[in-house]
């Protein structure tokens, strides 16, 4: 289960990405994209994120995970194709020299923070 380590990496990425004047406890949502090839289970990632967020300085943050399908390109005939089964063979020419265009890697894509005005107004409804 590498979700715990990845959740810790997400926390560090958020901390490194927050503007200096934005307190980490104002973070409400953290958005990530996870490639299907990475074998990360979104529910597990959210579960461990919630388990450690209090200690990691993001007590009010929820994690939103978007899974990205795998898309490939054949290096022989340049045909681009998506895959559902883990078979990296070009459906057009049968070649096995295939590069993955997307669907691999974990990206932090955005953060939502509570704005100061909302705090001052006592508006705590972020649903």
């Amino acid at each position, binding site marked *: 289960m590498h979700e715990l*380590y990845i959740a810790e990496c997400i926390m560090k990425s958020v901390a490194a990405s927050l503007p200096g004047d934005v307190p980490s406890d104002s973070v409400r949502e953290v958005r990530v994209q996870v490639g299907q090839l990475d074998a990360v289970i979104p529910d597990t990632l959210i579960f461990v994120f919630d388990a450690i967020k209090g200690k990691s300085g993001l007590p009010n943050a929820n994690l939103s995970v978007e899974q990205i399908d795998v898309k490939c390109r054949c290096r022989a005939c340049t045909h681009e194709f998506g895959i559902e089964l883990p078979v990296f063979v070009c459906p057009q020419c049968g070649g096995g020299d295939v590069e993955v265009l997307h669907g691999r890697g974990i990206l932090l894509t955005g953060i939502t923070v509570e704005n100061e005005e909302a705090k001052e107004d006592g508006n705590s409804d972020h649903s």
Partner: protein
Amino acid sequence: MEIPIIRDVLEESNLRAQENRALFDKHGVFAVNIMSSPGSGKTTLLQKTIPALKERGFSCAVIEGDITSTIDSERLQPLGVPVVQANTEPFGGDCHLGSHLVQAALKHLDLSAIDFLFIENIGNLVCPAEFYLGENRRVVVLSLPEGEDKPLKYPLMFRECSVCLLNKMDLAPHLEVDVERIKSNIRKTNGQIAILPMSAKTGEGIDQWIAWLLRARNGPR
């Protein structure tokens, strides 16, 4: 307020890995990350590989990854090469070696005296594939008793590796396993991967594995 970002979550991990790689390059170390399921024969492979390389005049060292215990390190002690144990238990019991752990282990090695550094990753076909450690090559060991379906169940591992060592070939007559189907499934996940059938126990196929290592070390890193 929305803050749009595009940032690789593993940025810090990859940075540590690049630092490791810079150290390998500086000292002429060829680092090989060996991955597999538990029990597929990684340690036995090293028990055969290291003497074969020593015979040819190469010096070796091992970073031995385990969640807990020093059992594998103890098995390698008689080989007389530096072995650094890297346990992940103090770091939360991670099921893979991280680049920071490898970096910590490197401090215990005299890299200028090492030709081949073997990083025996934690037995697991899922997580280790995800994390770059700074290695020159990635190797997956798949043993026959694990069955034909494993490459299709753990495609990232087979996509990430340059070579698959098909281990425990000596068991083939005793198993209902279709070796050609295993090879075909490996190639479905990665058409470029080299497949080397072998038995670390009997020594069958070790020579072609050593030849592969020497070619890889002498070629573009």
